[in-house]
Structures are given as C-alpha cells and as structure tokens.
C-alpha cells in the first residue's frame, strides 16, 4: 500500500523503472523560451517530439481541442502560463477571481456540452476555485481544473502557498490526480478529460507541482488517443428486461407523469425525450436542472416541480400512479418529505449513476443507463402499441387541466400604474423581448426562482443555474463563459443586488475581452430569499437580510465604461429591455427596482407532501 504519508505522494519510487517515455533530456533554457525539441534518427528525420511538462500541457490542450481556458496566474503556475503565452490556439481568459474562472468554465460547459477548463496557481488560487468546483460537482458538470502546486520536494513542509488541494477537494470532485513525473502529463490529462466528460460528468482536479513543468527538462510527447482505466467503465445502455418492464407499466398506467432532470440535458437526450413523451401523450414535469429538456410552451409540459415548482406539477406528482423519473435524483428540494412522497405511485428510475437510484426514494423499476440510449429503447418498444387506458388518461388530463385553471391569473399580482415593479413582470417582459430564446443564467435567491418560473424555455441548456449547491455569484461569470462560446446569441444574467456583489469584479474581465452579456439586476435592496424565510419562520425579524449602503449601480457600471439603465416603472421596462438587447456585443446593466415585499410562491410546506404548498401570503393547499 503506497499511502501518501508513508512513501510521499510524488516522485519517490518513480526514478527506477522509468520507461522510454521517462528518458530525461535536459536543455539550457534558450532566450526564446523553450520551443519544441526533437530527436532525430540517422537520416535526420524527426522521430519523437520532446517537450517540457509545461509545453506538454499547452500542446495537450490544443490536441484535445480546448478553445478556452479560464484562469489566473501565480508562482506555481508560471511555467504553464509561459507555455500558453508561446502558442495561440488555446485562448486564455484572465478572470479577476479564481471562483469566476470555475463558474465561467462551468457556464461554457453547460451551454456547449464540452468540458470547461480552468488553470489556477497553488494555495490561495486553488482554494478560491473550491466553490466553483463544488458547484460543478453538485450539478454534474464536466470540468478539468489544473492547479499549480509547490515543488514536489517542498510538499508537506507548509511551503509558501502550499495547500493540499487534492485533499481539500476530495469530497467535491469526480476524481483527482497529482502529477508525479512530467512524462505522465499527457496520459493523466487525457484521463482527466475522459473522466470529466463521460458517465455522470463532474469536475476533475489535476495537481501539478512546479518542478513537473520545468522548462529545462524535456520528455517525449505523444497525444494519447485512447484511455485505459480498468476500474471505470460507465454503462452504455440499460438492462433490456428492465426497460421492457418499464414500458409495460407505462402502457398500462392510468395517471402517469414523467419527472425528468439534468441528466436528460447533460446526457443530450432532449429530442428523444420529447418524442417519447409526445408519443405517449403523458404529462411531464422537470426539475430546475431539467428545464427546457421538453419544450415548456407545449401543453404536455406542467413546468417544473419541487419547493417552488408549479402547483400543477406538484399536484400531479402527488396523485400519480406511475412516475417515470429520468436523469433526476429525487433530491430534497423536489421530494419534500420522502415518507409522504407520492403515496400512490410506482416509480421507474432511469439514471446513469447507480448510486442515484434508490438513494432517497426506493425505485420499483431501477434502470441504470444513459438517458439517451434508454429513451431510444423505450421509443422503439412503445412504437406500434397503444396505451391500455386512454379514457383514464383523458380523465387524468382533465384533472390536471383543472389544477392549471385553478391557478391561472392568480400567480402574482401585477403592479398598478406608478407602483414599484413586481419581479415576476420583469422576467415576463424579458422573455417577450428575447422571444424566449436567450441563454439565461441566474444567481441564487428569489430572482432565480422567478427567472425559472416566468421565463419559458423551449430548449435545453438555456436556463443555466446553480441548482445543487445554490451558489450566489455563479450567474455573472457563467454568462461570460457562455457568451464567449455563443457570441451571436443573447446571454442574460438575471441577478439580485446581493448575488451580483459577490462576483462583480468580473466587469473588468468583460471589459478586457469585450464580452457583451446583459445583466438584469432585480434590485429589491434585500437578500430577498432570506427575508422571505424570515417573514415565514421568524415573525419578520430580518436579521441581516437587508442591504444597507448599496452602491449606485449606475455609476459603478459606468466606471467600467459600460451602459447602465435604471428602471423604476412598468412603462420604462420594455423600452429599457429593447435598448439593452439592441446591440449583441455590448454589455448593458439594467438596475430594475422591484418590490422588496414580494414572496416566491408556490412554496412547499416543510416536512409535508408534494401537494402541501403555500400559494400566496394568504392561501395554502
């Protein structure tokens, strides 16, 4: 057993038994930096390429097709920065705080489906990235984080800027690596990208001691086309017998509901899901993370479910006789009290991660497999069959439509002329102005819930939000990462004055790279969501949930050279939005003053069933 503490985590034991690739070639650092070197055979032809560890990293990123890397330099990462400087294929985006680098890479990953890449230095650089790593972990987002580390001979000595970042991040990564020899770099990086992006995706940390990237030592570089990991074989399809059983239950169901989550989005299974749901004619509700996997404007979509989900979603779940869960993990913000969860339903649970199945709620038909292949199998099994109880399904729809009608026009009370705006109407206007087609990122709080409730998403990956960790500060840098990948699309960050102040330093990054995101600040001058809980549970004692000394956002934004628009009334709202979205490449900040007394409803009653909800300040189910 090679235990870190006993044998040292890095170089020991590796000096002997070094294979061909470990042959060291030292070279004096020439003034031009350290360009690629090659050994030559007798005819003088190039055979193998010799690169320093740092150049291998830069080369690997190119060969892997990485377009953007988000980062911030520092001592332990300087060899890598120098290598990046001497090439121009991989574009490095300099953020203003490492947390923003991880959120930007995360936003990029969510919108593009490709892993986000981050580069930070050791110690404080790496610890600043922790919140973003945890955010990506909770939402299963593919990300590779390269962390500089102190020289290997200093590890364990409390050296300057030393942090055991592999240890710190262990519970919040899919896996992590420490580079123990420069020659391992291509293989380890390939594994990191492979692990991050396959199976249930997640962040992977690679810890790189500074001596591993020294420009004076060169090793053979070959881009590894394949990876071998004997202990990692993500499932590629579900169990056919189980899928058959599930489809039989689906065809016989009387009150079925699809409940689908982020796994359908990251698993790129939205089209299949839409086909399947349409063929069966069943209602569907999604999680916050699953929004847009099925078009929300379609009649069969009940919106999203859970703590602040729609009334009809939660009612349908509670009364269903069959729940078809795909790529969703029955988390506590969805199920409410699991012992009262969906008392009459049988549960089919499809997930690529076996440990998600039957974790909080027991599945009657567990299916471990990727959403896309399982859904496709379901579609082919459903084809040519009709449902056993069409009349029961019709009754079920009648019931659901009744629930819908119950709440119609009662979701919130719009502002009266001259009154302060309601946050909900701001989101509805935003949806109109952007024709429901923008990438919408959010921070965390009431504004997040309003954005999810009142913007109608017809495509997956369009609502980009920190669902699992609920990270304030996520929205703005995430929007930055998306806009760079989709410069011709509208990208808007819906934020609150509390959240925005957690990452507003990134205005400077946007200025440097000309990132034209739009920011809609639902300014209620308070930590609205906290305040709402205090209203409900602490007799309105607002302990530190109001914001004193808010900056003049208008001046603040102008100080960075951007346009700010302050909006106070309904008649100012749409013109301001039109103006903001007129130029796709300009950052515009809308400071919209909204009603601080507004609450987010529906809101599930703690410890209750799905159907137990507060519907407004005065009504409950």
């Amino acid at each position, binding site marked *: 057993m090679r235990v870190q503490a006993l044998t040292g985590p890095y170089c020991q034991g590796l000096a002997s038994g070094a294979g061909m690739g470990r042959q060291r070639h030292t070279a004096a650092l020439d003034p031009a930096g350290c360009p690629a070197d090659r050994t030559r055979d007798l005819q003088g032809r190039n055979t193998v390429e010799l690169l320093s560890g740092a150049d291998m990293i830069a080369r690997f990123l190119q060969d892997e097709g990485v377009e953007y890397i988000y980062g911030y330099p520092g001592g332990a990462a300087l060899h890598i920065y120098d290598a990046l400087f001497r090439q121009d294929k991989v574009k490095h985006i300099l953020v203003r705080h490492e947390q923003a680098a991880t959120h930007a890479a995360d936003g990029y990953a969510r919108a593009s489906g490709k892993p986000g890449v981050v580069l930070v230095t050791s110690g404080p650089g790496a610890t600043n990235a922790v919140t973003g790593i945890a955010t990506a972990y909770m939402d299963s987002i593919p990300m590779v984080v390269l962390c500089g580390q102190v020289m290997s001979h200093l590890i364990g000595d409390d050296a300057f800027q030393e942090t055991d970042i592999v240890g710190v991040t262990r519970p919040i990564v*899919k896996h992590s690596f420490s580079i123990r020899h420069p020659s391992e770099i291509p293989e380890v990086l390939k594994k990191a990208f492979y692990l991050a992006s396959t199976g249930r995706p997640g962040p992977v940390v690679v810890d790189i001691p500074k001596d591993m990237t020294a420009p004076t030592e060169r090793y053979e570089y070959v881009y590894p086309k394949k990876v071998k990991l004997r202990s990692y074989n993500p499932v590629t399809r579900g169990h056919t017998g189980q899928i058959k059983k599930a489809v039989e239950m689906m065809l016989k169901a009387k009150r079925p509901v699809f409940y689908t989550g982020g796994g359908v989005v990251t698993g790129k299974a939205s089209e299949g899901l839409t086909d399947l749901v349409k063929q069966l004619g069943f209602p569907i509700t999604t999680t916050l993370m699953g929004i847009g996997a099925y078009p929300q404007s379609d009649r069969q979509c009940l919106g999203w479910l859970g703590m602040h989900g729609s009334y009809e979603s939660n009612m349908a779940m509670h009364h269903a006789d069959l729940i078809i869960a795909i790529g969703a993990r029955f988390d506590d913000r969805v199920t409410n009290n699991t012992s009262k969860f969906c008392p009459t339903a049988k549960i089919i649970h499809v997930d690529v991660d*076996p440990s998600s199945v039957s974790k909080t709620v027991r599945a009657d038909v567990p299916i471990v497999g990727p959403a896309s292949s399982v859904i496709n199998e379901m579609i082919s099994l459903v084809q040519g069959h009709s449902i056993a109880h069409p009349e029961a399904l019709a009754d079920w729809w009648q019931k659901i439509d009744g629930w819908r009608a119950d709440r119609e026009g009662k979701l919130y009370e719009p502002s009266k002329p001259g009154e302060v705006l309601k946050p909900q109407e701001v989101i509805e206007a935003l949806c109109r102005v952007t024709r429901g087609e923008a990438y919408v990122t959010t921070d965390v709080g009431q504004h997040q819930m309003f954005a999810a409730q009142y913007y109608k998403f017809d495509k997956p990956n369009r609502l980009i939000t920190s669902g699992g960790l609920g990270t304030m500060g996520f929205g703005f840098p995430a929007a930055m990462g998306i806009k760079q990948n989709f410069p011709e699309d509208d990208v808007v960050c819906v934020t609150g004055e509390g959240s925005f102040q957690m990452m507003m330093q990134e205005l400077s990054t946007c200025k440097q790279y000309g990132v034209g995101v739009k920011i809609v600040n639902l300014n209620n001058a308070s930590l609205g969501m906290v305040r709402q809980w205090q209203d409900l549970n602490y007799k309105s004692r607002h302990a530190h949930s109001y914001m004193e000394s808010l900056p003049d956002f208008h001046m603040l934004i102008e100080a960075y050279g951007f346009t700010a628009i302050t909006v106070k009334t309904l008649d100012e709202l749409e013109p301001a939005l039109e103006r903001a979205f007129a130029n796709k490449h300009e950052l515009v900040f809308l400071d919209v003053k909204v009603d601080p007394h507004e609450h987010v409803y529906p809101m599930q009653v703690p410890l209750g069933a799905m159907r137990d909800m507060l519907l407004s300040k005065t009504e409950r189910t």
Partner: protein
Amino acid sequence: MRHIISILMENEPGALSRVVGLFSQRNFNIETLNVAPTEDPSLSRLTVTTIGDDRVIEQITKHLNKLIDVVKLVDLTEGNHIERELMLVKVKALGAARDEVKRTVDIFRAQIVDVTPSLYTVQITGDASKLDAFLQAMSPVGILEVARTGVSGIARGDKVLSL
C-alpha cells in the same frame, strides 16, 4: 446488520483516503478497517466492517464502486465466508494468575509470544467475537494493552475476488 466488505483498489497514493473520506462524507460507519498490498503489486485489498440496514449497505457498495480507484468489491456477508482478525494483548501475569492466564490462552488456542516476569504477550486469531470473548476472560486479570488488526476475510469455496 454487520457487513464485511472487501475491496480491491489501485495501489495508488490517495486511494485509501478516498475510501475513508467517502465513509465520513456520507455518514457511513466504519467498525474496522485493514489494508495491504496483494500478490499483484498494483492492487491493494482493503477490508472494512460496517453496520447498516440494507439501504445503507446498498449505498455504501454503490458509492465505493463509483470511486475511480476501486477496481472490484464484494460484500462477504452475502455468502459463506471466513473471517479472521489477529490480536496482540499484554496481560498481567503475576502469582496465581500466571497459571490461570496460561490455561485460558490454551483454551482459546492462543499463543504466548513474549514473556516478562510480570506479564505475557498473547497472540490470538479468530473472528471478532472470539477475540472479544478472550478480552472478556482476561479483564479480571488485567489487560495492559491491546492491538487488533481489524477484520480480514475471504469467501468460502470456489468464489474468488480477483480481476
């Protein structure tokens, strides 16, 4: 119920801390833990005893399997198996008790592996309950020090945990 889970994992730095970290992170309990390399130097075998209902044990095995460093595992308690633990104990051995200790050691088929005028060092192997029983028998005489390895185990019959 008590379960004995044996794990083959990569003999890599940090692998053990991932396994142990998983137990604390997810609030699973560890009764005993032992780990050593196998005949294949790239693999370590780790055996953990834990207590939990079926749901918890299912979660433990699923999460362990998810760790990239875990290559294969088996819940030995699901079938017939052999369970062993080794213990070294220093007990007082003075006057009349000296003979009494020796007799008890024989009854338990333990061995005295070191002696001084005032104490015996006893080595005993068996399942955990046998070791517990020996400690109970020795406690009136005076136990000075106990070193237990934690449970190791293997399936009976043809079943083999290997790659």
